[in-house]
Structures are given as structure tokens and as C-alpha cells.
């Protein structure tokens, strides 16, 4: 399984802070994004960044491993 987390405005639009999705061999970050975008279109309208296991992921072709923690995030507004 892949654990997907949403925070702030993305969580509000998704109506959830955490979802789990099945891991498939060869799965890449873009595959996960495409799948979740179909399920949560309003949330993904504002998604700008992703992180995998707590590290910024700039390459959407990044291969995922089972039990990864993935976060799709909107622009930050701390400070």
C-alpha cells in the first residue's frame, strides 16, 4: 500500500487528510498523481508540489516503492 497525505487547502478540498492506495510494481509518482487526480479533481487543481517519504520530489517519473508515504501539496504559506 501507498500512504497518501493531504494538508491544508488540499485536504479541505479532498475531504480527507489521508488515503491509502494499492501499490503496483513499476508504479511511478506520475501514475499515482493521475489516479488520485481523477478521484480528487478539486484538490489537484491547486497541487504544485509532491514529496516522497518526506523529501521534495521534483521528478514525476520517480519510481515508488511499497509502503511509501507520498504527499501532494499546494503552495506553502507559512511564516
Amino acid at each position, binding site marked *: 500500500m501507498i500512504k497518501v497525505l493531504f494538508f491544508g487547502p488540499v485536504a479541505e478540498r479532498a475531504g480527507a487528510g489521508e488515503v491509502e492506495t494499492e501499490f503496483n510494481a513499476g508504479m511511478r509518482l506520475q501514475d499515482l498523481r493521475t489516479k488520485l487526480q481523477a478521484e480528487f479533481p478539486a484538490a489537484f487543481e491547486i497541487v504544485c508540489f509532491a514529496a516522497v517519504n518526506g523529501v521534495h520530489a521534483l521528478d514525476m517519473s520517480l519510481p515508488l516503492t511499497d509502503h511509501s508515504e507520498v504527499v501532494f501539496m499546494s*503552495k506553502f504559506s507559512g511564516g
Partner: protein
Amino acid sequence: MKEAVRIQQQDFSQDEEVAALRAGSKRMGGIATFTGCARDFSEGREVTKISFDAYESMAVKEMNKLREEAIARFELLDARIVHRIGLVGAGEQIVFVAAGAEHRAPALQACQWLIDELKQRVPIWKKEITPQGDAWVTAHP
């Protein structure tokens, strides 16, 4: 002594943070600090509170990286970063950055760099709570 980089719900003491910074070295000739506070007015609306959400584990990692980068880049003797999450009332403190160096110029430059980079790189989001309703804030310059 409290950690140099923290995310916490409770308020912080600037005096305690500066004292902790100064305790590390007697060679510190310049200390620059920045304190971000919750404004009671934003984009034409009264703001009563601000609610902060964070991807806390990553936010702390990123803030620690920022501190280490600032120390190396500006040759600081030490630096501290504290950010609150949860509900913060109008007028209250949100974020504190302190940079200590042998001289004032690197301390001032590092302080500005740290708060600018924090806004770009640290996964924290704010929602303004107003009498007219709540609204997530898009990034300010």
C-alpha cells in the same frame, strides 16, 4: 535547552531564544532577529485568528536544513527557527528567526534569507479566520 529548530503550538519567548543563541559563543558580535505576527486585517477583511497546518515531520527536516545551510552560507556562529502551528490569535507571534555572527552584515543577511527561504520551502499552510468565513492564504511575497 530547547531545540534550535522547533514547530510548536504554544507561544515562544524571544528573550529565551536570543539567550539560547548567545549562550553558544562569546564571539557573537551581531544578532539579527525576525518575528512574524498575525495581522488583524488582510485584503479588506478583519482577521480574528489564523490556523496553521503543517506536514510536521518534513517541515522540521526542511527547517533544520535551512539552519544548516544558513550557518554554512553566511558563516554564522548559530541560528534558531521557531514556527507555531494550530490556532494563533490576531496580534500574536507566529514565527521567529535569529541569526548570530561575528559581525552584523552576515547576521542581517542570513535572517532575511532564512525567512524568505522558509516561506518557499517549508510545508506549512495558513487559513485566516474572519467573521465573514475562513480562507486559505495563497503565498505572499
